[in-house]
């Protein structure tokens, strides 16, 4: 334990100021700039009414389609331009498509040495039996990192849009809102879920862990696990899922997974760019503990995707976890 310092000393430290600045309570201009508190401008009711009526009147006069000839013309012109632009865009795109090389021809630019190298040396270099996984998680792992971040950002956007403010929640509870309605205790659904959820989640884990051996991988496995969690939530309600999955769990899970992914990939980029031999053994292709970092990356992607799917559902359903 560190030594406890008195409050007045603590308030002088940098960390205290930083903390206050982070939380937004620290006013950097306090005591430095001359300021005057703003007075609230008051309007009487009659003034507001008058303004509303004037606004309405103006709108009616502007959008009076029967008498306003200019507006009619502008509307027609607008429609013509919309059709014209659509046609131009369609023609341009069709022209571009007609210039594409024909499908499946041997001299197409896609048939270059890159795909040949992936097919010939893919297993040797990445250690993954499944070439697709070797490609997306080894040769092009940077793209997959971006994809995982896109998912995380999408969740953040959904959080911003759909999250219910806990302070306002109580007011809304009074209004008949389906946010607060727990799923009904349906016997059929619960029995089916009891038998179906464990196999679904185990299958998801299998798809993630076997991503480098057969079809599957982090994204599909994570989606399967997410679907299993959603089914469980639908059958048993939020009270049971909140025991093991809350907003905090999701944050910790995704940040840890994305951080691990970024660390692993930066290591392999560093060694690759500087021609240092990577110390991670590739193992025998076909074993579950093989193909270097691909297994770890698969697990990371799976965790992020499963959490994202579940969070989407929670946000849509309740606006909270």
């Amino acid at each position, binding site marked *: 334990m560190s030594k406890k310092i008195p409050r007045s000393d603590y308030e002088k430290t940098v960390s205290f100021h930083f903390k206050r600045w982070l939380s937004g309570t620290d006013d950097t201009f306090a005591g430095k700039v001359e300021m005057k508190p703003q007075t609230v401008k008051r309007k009487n009711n009659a003034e507001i009414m008058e303004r509303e009526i004037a606004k309405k009147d103006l709108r009616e006069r502007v959008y009076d389609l029967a008498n306003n000839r200019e507006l009619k013309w502008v509307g027609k012109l607008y429609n013509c331009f919309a059709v014209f632009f659509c046609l131009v865009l369609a023609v341009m795109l069709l022209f571009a498509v007609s210039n594409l090389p024909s499908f499946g021809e041997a001299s197409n630019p896609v048939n270059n040495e890159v795909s040949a190298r992936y097919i010939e040396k893919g297993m040797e270099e990445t250690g993954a039996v499944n070439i*697709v996984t070797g490609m997306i998680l080894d040769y092009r792992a940077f793209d997959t990192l971006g994809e995982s971040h896109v998912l995380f950002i999408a969740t953040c956007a959904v959080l911003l849009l759909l999250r219910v403010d806990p302070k306002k929640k109580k007011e809304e509870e009074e209004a008949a809102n389906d946010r607060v309605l727990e799923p009904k205790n349906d016997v059929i659904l619960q029995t089916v879920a009891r038998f179906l959820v464990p196999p679904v989640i185990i299958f998801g884990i299998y*798809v993630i862990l076997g991503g480098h051996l057969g079809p*599957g*991988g982090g*994204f*599909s496995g994570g989606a399967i696990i*997410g679907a299993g969690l*959603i089914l469980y939530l639908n059958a048993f309600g939020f009270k049971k899922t909140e025991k093991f999955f809350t907003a905090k769990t999701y944050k910790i899970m995704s940040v840890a997974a994305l951080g691990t992914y970024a660390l692993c990939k930066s290591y392999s980029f560093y060694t690759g760019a500087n021609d240092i031999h990577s110390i991670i053994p590739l193992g025998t292709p076909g074993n579950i503990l093989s193909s270097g970092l691909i297994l770890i990356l698969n697990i990371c992607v799976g965790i992020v995707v499963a959490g994202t799917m579940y969070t989407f*559902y929670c946000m*849509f359903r309740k606006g909270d976890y």
Partner: protein
Amino acid sequence: MNVVFTDVLLFFLLVCAIAASFSKKLLNSILIFMSFSLIMSIIWIILESPDLAITEAAVGAGVTTVLFFVTLKKIREIVSTDEEGDAKDEQKDPQK
């Protein structure tokens, strides 16, 4: 045999795509869209890309459909039987 099967599946795919956009009820649209994803995942298997097939089945037919259902419930397009009376009243009174 396989060619015929693929042709039938592609035909179903077209039918689903057109029906989903022209169906009057949103709920039916979602169900048709779900079958579209399911057919698409079978086509992925025939095209020898099982990775995509698994993803399509899990995301397209599973999670997306559920999210659509929840959204429909949010905007009161689906109503359970005991709420139906209230919802009809609401529709009659657009001012509300």
